[in-house]
Structures are given as C-alpha cells and as structure tokens.
C-alpha cells in the first residue's frame, strides 16, 4: 500500500524524476544519469503492476533517459571543426526539468491563493424578482419600419377601397334562394328538361353558381324536380315534376 500511494502521487514523469533527483540529493545541473535512470525504471516497473496505462506515459521519459545515458558513455569528443565541445547530452532534459519545477512552484502559489480565498466570503445576490418580473419595455423604433408601415398602410388603404367597392356591388346584387327559385320556375314553363348550364345562364360568378345550385337542391328536396348526373363532373340534367311544381305553386300562393 505504501508503494501504491507513493507511485500514484506523481503528477507525471517529470514530477517523478524531480523527486528522485532531489531525494538522491543530486544537483539538477549535474544529474548522475546512470543512477537516476536505474531508479526511474524501477519505479515505472512497479507502477506497471498497478496501472499499466499510467506507466505507459512514464515510459517515454525512461527511453529518453536511456538515450542520454548511452550518449554519456561516449567519450566527449571535440566536434569536427575542432572548435567547440559537443553539447552536454543532459542539457535539454535539465531545461525541461527546470521549467517544470518553475510551474510546480506556480501551482503551489495558486494553491495558497486558493486557500486564502477560502477565507473571504461574499454574499448571494438579493432576490431580484420584484424587478425582473416587470421588465422595462424598451421601444425599438426605426425609421424604415415606420416608413414601411406608412407605405403599407397607403397600399392597404387602396386595397381596402377596392374591396369596399366590390362589396357594394355584391350587396346590390344579393338575391335570396327564394328569388332564384322563382326565376328557375319561370324557365321550366317553357321547357320540361334543362341542363344546369342552361339554368345558370350567362352570369357565371361564383355567387350565382352557388345560389343556383342551392336553389336546385331546394327544389329537389321539395320533389319539384328530378336531378340526374350520369358521370362525375358531367352535365347535370334537371327534369321538372310538373304536378309537384304546380302544387308548390298553389301552396305558395
């Protein structure tokens, strides 16, 4: 159990490496790579047994360490132009560790700051429902909407006037079913059988068609006429039942 806690506590490969270096009381600028690599790999091996996935992330650095170790074994040769020493194979790692340590410090500082803020308290917002329930209505007016409204109104006014004009004509011509039936009866005086089109006459307005059709139905109901239509949408043929028609005539009078 002690192991588990110790292993899982590291935030990442650098964290573990920094711990090992500090624990071994090495200078970060002069890491004994062979020793540290051995310890590092040992830790990661133990970690594998607990959490293989997590250990995987630590393996990359293990490889880097091994590489550095092998480079360290090579004699420090002078480079080809005989001028400079080759770079210390550790220097890149050292830079990274230093940067990481810097951020670890920042994290510690933030943690402290967080703790400090735990001692400062604020109050919740007051109940604002009295205000929010009655929002201020802000009138959004713009010129285009205004002008459009006016234009639309002018157009509508024209349309309305046209509608009114027509309404008056319809009003003037309005006829009841009774009136229409009287007209139809007159037609049957001359002819016993009439097509619907003939009854309709020349006025093919919707109003007249409806009125005539309704009148025809009414006459049918009174059995004054018989109506036939041989095919759908075909011609409607109306035959007068003179007896009934006469009787109705009599009743009406």
């Amino acid at each position, binding site marked *: 159990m002690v192991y588990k806690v110790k292993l899982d506590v590291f935030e990442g490969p650098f964290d573990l490496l920094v711990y090992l270096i500090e624990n071994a009381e090495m200078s970060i600028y002069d890491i004994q790579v062979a020793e540290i690599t051995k310890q590092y790999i040992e830790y990661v091996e133990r970690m594998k047994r607990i959490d293989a996935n997590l250990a995987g992330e630590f393996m990359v650095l293990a490889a880097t360490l091994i590489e550095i170790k092998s480079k360290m074994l090579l004699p420090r040769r002078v480079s080809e132009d005989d001028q400079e020493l080759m770079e210390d194979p550790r220097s890149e790692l050292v830079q990274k560790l230093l940067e990481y340590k810097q951020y670890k410090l920042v994290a510690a500082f933030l943690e402290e700051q967080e703790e400090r803020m735990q001692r400062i*308290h604020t*109050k*919740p917002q007051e109940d*604002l429902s009295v*205000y*929010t329930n*009655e*929002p*201020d*209505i*802000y*009138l*959004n*007016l*713009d*010129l*285009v*909407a*205004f*002008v*459009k*409204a*006016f*234009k*639309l*109104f002018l*157009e*509508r*006014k024209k*349309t*309305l006037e046209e*509608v009114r004009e027509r309404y008056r004509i319809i009003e003037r011509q309005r006829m009841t079913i009774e009136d229409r039936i009287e007209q139809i009866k007159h037609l049957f005086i001359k002819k016993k059988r009439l097509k619907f089109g003939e009854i309709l006459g020349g006025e093919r307005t919707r109003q007249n068609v409806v009125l005539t059709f309704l009148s025809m139905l009414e006459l049918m109901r009174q059995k004054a006429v018989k109506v036939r239509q041989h095919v759908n949408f075909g011609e409607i043929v109306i035959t007068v039942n003179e007896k009934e028609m006469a009787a109705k005539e009599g009743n009406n009078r």
Partner: protein
Amino acid sequence: MSLRETIKSAFESMMFVWGEPLDSKVAADIFNIDRKEAYELFKELQMEYETQNRGIRIREIDKAFQFCTWEGNDEYIRKLCTPVKEKRLSQSAMEVLAIIAYKQPVTKAEIESIRGIKCDRVIEGLIKKDLIEEVGRSTGIGRPILYGTTKTFLKNFGFKNLNDLPRMEDISDVIRESEEGEAADPLQITLEIPNK
C-alpha cells in the same frame, strides 16, 4: 485594532454572510461577551454607517441586526436590476403614428376616417409611450382634441425636427434603399386585412 474594533469588524463580516437579521445574543456568544455589550457595539456600527451616509445601512429588528441598502438609493437599484425588454410597435400603432406624424395636428375622427377603423386604444397606447400627445383643440364641433408627435418621437426615430421626416413622395425610395441594403424580398410583404 482594539478589541472593540476587532469585535465590530467581525460583527460586520458576520452580518454580511448571515444575510438574515443576526441576533445580538448569538453574536455575543461567539466572543463570550454579554448581549448588552454586543447590542451596544451593533448600535455603534449602525451609527457609523448612518453618519457616513453609506449606501448600505444596518437595521435593527427585535435586537437582531441586518445589513440593508439605504432607501434613498431605491431608484438606482431599480435601474440596475430591471431588465429591459425590446418591444416593437404593432402594425396598427405604427400606422396611426405615421398618420399623426404626417397630418398633425389631427383629430381622432380624422385618423379614423383615414383608416376606416376605430383607434381609441391605439392612441391611448401611443400617448402612454410618450410618442404622441394632445397639442390643442380643434375649432370644429365638440372641439375635439388635436394630436401631434412628441419630442420622444423625434428622439426615437433620430429626427432633429419634423422637417426631417421623409417626404411622402420619397417614401418608396427610403424603403427601396433599405431593402436593397437588406436584400429583403419585396414579394414577402403581406397585407393584413382586418378580420371583421
């Protein structure tokens, strides 16, 4: 800080976090002082906020104390907290407004004869919104009220004065310009027919 100062400062913090009236006895117990002493410290604090004309004050409810806002600032709190809701004028309100704008001063009867429909409610609404107002009385029979547009009307539409209104003849141009800008479909204008 003296002990009194320390306790007073703590009382302020405690009242602030507590929100509800903080009983002076409860506060006293935290410092192991007696209620009367705590009460007096609260009263001192209350006086300090008052004499300094602070925007927050301390009020007493049955020997308990609570922070609250100063009543004189109610107006500003209202301004801060009241949300604004955008509203547009209805088509009929816009129409009546347009008629008044172009024909002012005008009576209600004239507007109604132009629109062919009653408009008492619309006029009422426009007056409430401070877009139109009564500007006098006609000399005609019954001396009916004459309406005109207000300063708010000018301000809201961004007119300097009434001469700034687009001329009736130019109206189509104004609309065309704006539609070209918006790439609006002119066929999309629908005519609203009053359902009577």
